[in-house]
């Protein structure tokens, strides 16, 4: 199972779990959680650097802890509320990752958000920014809501992966609309079964990851579900198991749901036959 590879653009991975690097209580916990998750791809954000020595000592740097030789870094455009901001952010992250010689230099997880309360994607801005970034030669993975029609438009615009949300970012509500995720998968994969679809955002616990994978997603991206768990490293281990369990269950093929029971032990030749019907 763990040897099964899949592709996203020019990348080939075995782990289907993508883990964020935000919100951990301390960097050591992050390092251990990433390790326990089995992930090969981690997400990061681009922000203004700290200029004063005092703040620097206090804040530390992600790059002191994150092993950029081990992980493929997927930079996001989080915090961008318009396509222009997202394009700027993508260019800066490309420059940064080229400097670090990380294979993730040319890809970007596009987020164009609509408002701070819901952090829901702005569908129009997202589509616009996808086109702009594809034009600029980026490999674009697009965070979007779970609208199948929009998902198809984003793929047609040249995204190398569409990442529908399970529920709002950091909400822990899980997969709110499995029917829509299923439709997204159907539309995105109908003539292109290997097109990667990654459920992004909203994961609260391990079963949410399994559900996404059982629906047929190629991967799951999460951050808060691990980083803010009471025991992040243990939860990361659970997510690692869940992604594999869900993938295996999808491949194995679940039984259809039936209205009535279906006995697993033979009902014949029992020593005391039941008299009830």
């Amino acid at each position, binding site marked *: 199972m763990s040897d099964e590879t899949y592709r996203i653009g020019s990348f080939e991975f075995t782990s289907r779990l993508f883990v964020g690097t935000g919100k951990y209580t301390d960097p050591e916990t*992050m390092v251990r959680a990433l390790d326990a998750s089995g992930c090969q791809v981690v997400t990061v954000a681009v922000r203004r*650097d700290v*200029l004063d020595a005092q703040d620097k000592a206090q804040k530390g740097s992600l790059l002191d802890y994150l092993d950029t030789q081990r992980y493929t870094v997927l930079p*996001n455009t989080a915090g961008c509320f318009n396509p222009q901001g997202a394009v700027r952010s993508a260019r800066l992250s490309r420059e*940064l990752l080229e*400097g670090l010689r990380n294979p993730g230099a040319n890809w970007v997880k596009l987020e164009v958000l609509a408002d701070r309360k819901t952090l829901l994607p702005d569908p129009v801005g997202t589509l616009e920014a996808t086109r702009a970034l594809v034009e600029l030669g980026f490999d674009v993975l697009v965070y979007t809501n779970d609208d199948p029609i929009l998902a198809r438009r984003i793929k047609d615009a040249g995204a190398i992966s569409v990442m529908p949300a399970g529920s709002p970012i950091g909400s822990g509500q899980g997969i709110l609309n499995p029917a829509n995720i299923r439709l997204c998968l159907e539309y995105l994969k109908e003539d292109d079964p290997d097109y990667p679809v990654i459920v992004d955002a909203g994961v609260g616990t391990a079963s949410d990851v399994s559900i996404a994978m059982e629906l047929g997603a190629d991967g799951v991206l999460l951050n808060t579900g691990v980083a803010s768990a009471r025991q992040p490293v243990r939860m990361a281990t659970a997510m690692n198991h869940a992604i594999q369990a869900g993938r295996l269950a999808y491949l194995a093929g679940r039984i259809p749901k039936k209205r009535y029971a279906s006995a697993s032990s033979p009902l014949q030749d029992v020593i005391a036959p039941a008299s009830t019907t």
Partner: protein
Amino acid sequence: MKLQVNGQTRSFEENDATIARLLQQFDLTPLRVAVELNGMLVPRAEYDQTKVHDGDHIEIVTLVGGG
């Protein structure tokens, strides 16, 4: 000269300092940052040659934790 760096006004004694010099002043490792000068990305290879002038807007960014 006065520069707007990451949204703050900063004074520098040298006029016509380069980006490389600026990063040195802030004790920043060039490989760990990306720089915009007046909204345009400055490629790393050009830090030594690119000069900044009074009133310029500079953004110096790095990678931080995110999802």
